[in-house]
């Protein structure tokens, strides 16, 4: 394992426009190639922390650094390029309901302008990995919540990101499937991908034997 720091939080505060304080003085260092779990009660700020890394939100105070560079220094036009290196798995998977499973998963590859034949190969591989190889032609509304979540996972990993940020990726899955998905993440981690997973499934998290970060809800 390399000890290079990839993500660093320096005295990060996040207050939403509503006045809700979601994160208070978070300091945190994550090494490149690490797999780490973020736990904490509902409302503790797990989703907020992941969104700050993906630049889906900006901190109210403090800095989030990637490879030693504060994200606040990134120019607007560099943001899309940065996001493409991240596979983000949303708590609510944000699928497009007028496109079938295949087309949903293909989106990141289309954005990077990959030729159609490569896209087919990669998408099918990603869908096989999450056990949806037979549902490529289905539409999201025809799927169960767990299947939809797995489509979101396939979409996040299809572009071979260097960093996977997963927000409750196993929330709607049965224990066996949840275990499988965690192993898939572990496989990505084995080939050097940095993986951050927010989860409140304590049993599952502890079985993975990785570093665990516990967020406490901000009490005023």
């Amino acid at each position: 394992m390399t000890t290079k720091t990839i993500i660093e939080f320096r005295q990060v505060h996040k207050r939403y426009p509503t006045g809700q304080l979601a994160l208070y003085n978070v300091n945190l260092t994550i090494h490149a190639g690490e797999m780490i779990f973020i736990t904490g009660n509902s409302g503790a700020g797990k989703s907020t922390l992941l969104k700050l890394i993906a630049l889906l939100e900006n901190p109210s105070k403090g800095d989030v650094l990637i490879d030693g560079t504060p994200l606040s220094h990134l120019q607007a036009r560099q943001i899309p390029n940065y996001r493409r290196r991240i596979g983000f798995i949303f708590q609510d998977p944000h699928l497009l309901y007028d496109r079938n499973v295949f087309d949903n998963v293909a989106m990141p590859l289309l954005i990077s302008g990959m030729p159609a034949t490569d896209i087919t190969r990669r998408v099918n591989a990603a869908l096989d990995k999450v056990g949806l190889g037979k549902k490529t032609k289905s539409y999201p509304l025809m799927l169960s919540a767990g299947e939809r979540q797995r489509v979101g996972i396939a979409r996040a990993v299809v572009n071979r990101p260097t960093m996977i940020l997963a927000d409750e990726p196993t929330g709607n899955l049965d224990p066996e499937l949840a275990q499988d998905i965690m192993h898939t993440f572990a496989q990505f981690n084995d080939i050097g991908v940095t993986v951050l997973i927010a989860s409140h499934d304590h049993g599952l998290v502890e079985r993975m034997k990785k570093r665990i970060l516990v967020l406490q809800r901000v009490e005023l």
Partner: protein
Amino acid sequence: MTEKRPLAKPRPATSNNFGRKSRVWLNQQKQAIDFSLKRLWFNPISAWITLIAIALALSLPTSMHVLVKNLQSLTHNNQSVPTISLFLKPKVTEQQANDLAELVKSQPEVLSTTVVTRDQALQDFNKISGLADTLKTLGENPLPNIVVITPKMNDLGVTDADLEDFSKRLKTYKEVEDVQIDIEWIQRLRAILQIAERIVAVVAALLATTVLLVVGNTIRLDIENRKDEIRVTRLIGATNRYIRRPFLYGGLWLGLFGGFLSLLVVNIALLFLVDPVNKLSMLYGSDFNLGGIDLTTTLEVLTVSAGLGLVGAWLAVNRYLWESEVIND
């Protein structure tokens, strides 16, 4: 131990970086073209309504333009239009008439001259009127020799004063009895056409704005319907340029196909006109023919309409992107 790319920096340049980039660009263009055409195809009702609105808006200035061009062709040199006739005095001989024709031809305003002898004139008159018998009763041919002048319309200027001046000069020849000018109407027509051209320009500008608004609104509705999609693609790293592209193509197609449709409409309208107009011009002994839309005009209309579609889409998308710059999950 695995080598990792820096996150916030572009991938390192390789020798075939340019080739890779242009291939990516091509793939993205192809994708956007595919996608935008499919959207047109699968939303036929809204697409057709927009296309017809564009076609109607464009066909008015296009048909006016064609009409003005046709009328303008009447005032050009090469059209055998009515001319200036010099009626010569009765005692002037054919030889003298020919000499005069030569002389007049050397004037800068004159394109060509022909002599119509009194015998020819009589024959023509007979042919047209069938009054040969009546004329025979006169015993002698009463018609004079005539020099017919085809002027250079462009050099003669457009003012009545020029024409007056020219006719006065012609009258000074001693052989000339009378000058009959048949070109005043052309000059009037020219003046009218100049005004008409202005009107066409104004109408074209107004209707171009209409096209811009129609396309802009269609694209805006399309964006409205696809807000989710735009948001999600943005979340997974789409650039503004990527998001914009299919909409721009969408606008381009609307403009281009709308332009095609308007050409079709104008051509059909012209078909209705061709027969009666040509009959009319035959009755006047003119070889004027109603011209259709030539290649230049066709290309002009298509370029302008495609351009308007593109600009309309551009305005709509940019307004949206500008408004939604703050990204919230």
